[in-house]
């Protein structure tokens, strides 16, 4: 349960502030607390930190991207010495149960990291895969809408398609543009929502998707990766 908050309202507010395009009725079911509750409080208690293994899935590369001020920053610099929770979104995502929902979960994760004193050990990094429309300014608005603390939660966008393709390939994040019947790009992407837990050595140790992007699970995994 998201402690004392109204996640649906937060989400709605975020969508309004960022100005994401309206969602078509057939693919936009009413977002209600029942669903949010199902995603954030599944019927299990996560296993205690350190009681299980998170083997290395893959090593990821470093990429020079732009942050919300437009500065060129490498992902390795942002992630240096920290466990990183890396997510891929685009701010125009029309599927409120996709990117906005993930960002809501990350917002909760940010709070928990602070509460558990992990602010110096972990960083959240959200990267847009819509480099054309997600300018630094647009990402800044999105970050603000989700209450991102720049010290803990960074947003970045790729300078060009080549860097973006290399980045997505390195993480194994799929993304396909959706076209309409006349072959025009709709502005939407089909993608499977994935969030990656990357250790201090730049190695993916877990991959989450909606359904178990549960803040306490991620916190326990971060502690597991950090070790005793």
């Amino acid at each position: 349960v998201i402690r004392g908050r109204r996640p649906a309202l937060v989400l709605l507010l975020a969508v309004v502030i960022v100005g994401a395009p309206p969602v078509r009725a057939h693919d936009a079911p009413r977002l209600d607390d029942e669903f949010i509750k199902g995603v954030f409080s599944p019927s299990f208690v996560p296993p205690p930190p350190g009681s299980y293994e998170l083997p290395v899935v893959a090593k990821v590369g470093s990429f020079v991207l732009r942050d919300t001020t437009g500065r060129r920053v490498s992902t390795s610099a942002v992630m240096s010495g920290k466990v990183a929770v890396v997510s891929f979104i685009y701010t125009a995502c029309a599927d409120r149960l996709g990117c906005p929902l993930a960002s809501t979960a990350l917002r909760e994760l940010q709070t928990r990291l602070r509460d558990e004193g992990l602010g110096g050990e972990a960083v959240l990094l959200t990267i847009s895969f819509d480099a054309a429309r997600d300018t630094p300014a647009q990402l800044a608005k999105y970050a603000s809408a989700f209450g991102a603390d720049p010290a803990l939660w960074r947003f970045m966008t790729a300078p060009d398609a080549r860097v973006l393709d290399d980045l997505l390939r390195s993480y194994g994040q799929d993304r396909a543009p959706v076209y309409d019947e006349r072959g025009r790009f709709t502005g939407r992407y089909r993608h499977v929502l994935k969030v990656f837990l990357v250790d201090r050595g730049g190695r993916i140790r877990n991959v989450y998707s909606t359904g178990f992007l549960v803040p306490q699970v991620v916190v326990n995994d971060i502690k597991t990766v950090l070790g005793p």
Partner: protein
Amino acid sequence: MKRTLVLIAVILLAAGAAGADETCQSPFLPKVTGQEDYIYVWTLGIKGVADGNDSLVTVDANPSSANYGKIVHRAPVRGQHEAHHAGFTDDRRQLWAGGLDSSLIFVFDVATDPARPRLVKTITTFVKDTGGLVGPHTFYALPGRMLISALSNSKDSGGRTGLAEYTNDGKFIRTISMPAEAPYGYDVRVNINLNRMLTSSFSGKKNYMRPVGELLKDAEAMKQFGDSVVVWDFHARKPLQILRVPGAPLELRWALLPNHHYAFTSTALTGQLVLIYRRDDGTWATKNIAEIGNTIPVDISIAPDDSKIYVNSYGDGTLRVYDVTNPHEGKLIQQMKLGEQANMVSTSWDGTRVYATSSLLSQWDKPGDHWLKGFAWEGGQLVSKFTTDFSGVGRAHIMNFGAKSFGPRAEGTPSRVAGRPAVR
């Protein structure tokens, strides 16, 4: 109820959204929620039939197509490997298909042209990678990786085995051994809302690659079958409880509605439909809920609203439908003779279409025709829609659904192929 079903469909779709039948696919996989366009059939190659190779056969499954019910493509691999099960990666771009004999894994690209899957990789190191697992069976998508249950081991070809994980691009991650008290393996399925994973149990290579006539006469060999379902902590990949389910429990199917904390299996050797359910104290128990009979039930499929279980039996070639609205009591509501034998049965995501295939194992198949059959619910009855004859390509085994919408072409635009992503 309808609103709940819609909600669940949406949840699973969004969950990275939403097994061989569509209703048993991994919760981490996007689903074909409407009309499937294709059925990919992992098909045993038979000497003297076509080139004799195992192949991934595409059958057109869209009633609006001129090729409805016809084979429209065949992607052969080199040799015969005991083609058995297959499953998609979490992005539904690849279909991994296993050989129970050779332990090779064939990776097909099904996204570039969904009608024409293309072999893009063969993993030849499964036995070595995994420390001796043999017979890759279930291919189950997890975020960014594939979870694979095995049937056997390289040391004695018996039933002691385990699970393996690989990245989506085919790199080995880890092996998880089955517990010593329940060493056999078969199927694996996850309920993410409960953080529980179930595994079932069959038999080792020295049994499944043996002619069935011989095997049945060998009393010692017939003792070498699994009798357990293991309940695991999925996140920790640790076994929590071993449930004794005598008679080789095979396919596992979780109920889909979020407040339904149970699953089903069937036992091949004892002919039972079995409920696996969570008790109030959080532990798990089983109950036989229907006597299927001495028919060697093999595959099962669950309706999307958890109201029905479909059971295909190898022994009498019959499809049976059980009402499991009350999961503690299975009621036989329909049965239909499909052929001399039957194996897989698959339900569409909307529950209105059902498909079945014939082949079980190369050494166990009876003489006779091999086919894929399509049915639809009409007026409360399952009605035959088509039969696809496999006599020209091999023996039809597992089915996975494909859709044009998972390909690169524009929605509703057959000619345009998307090139680079629309980033300018």
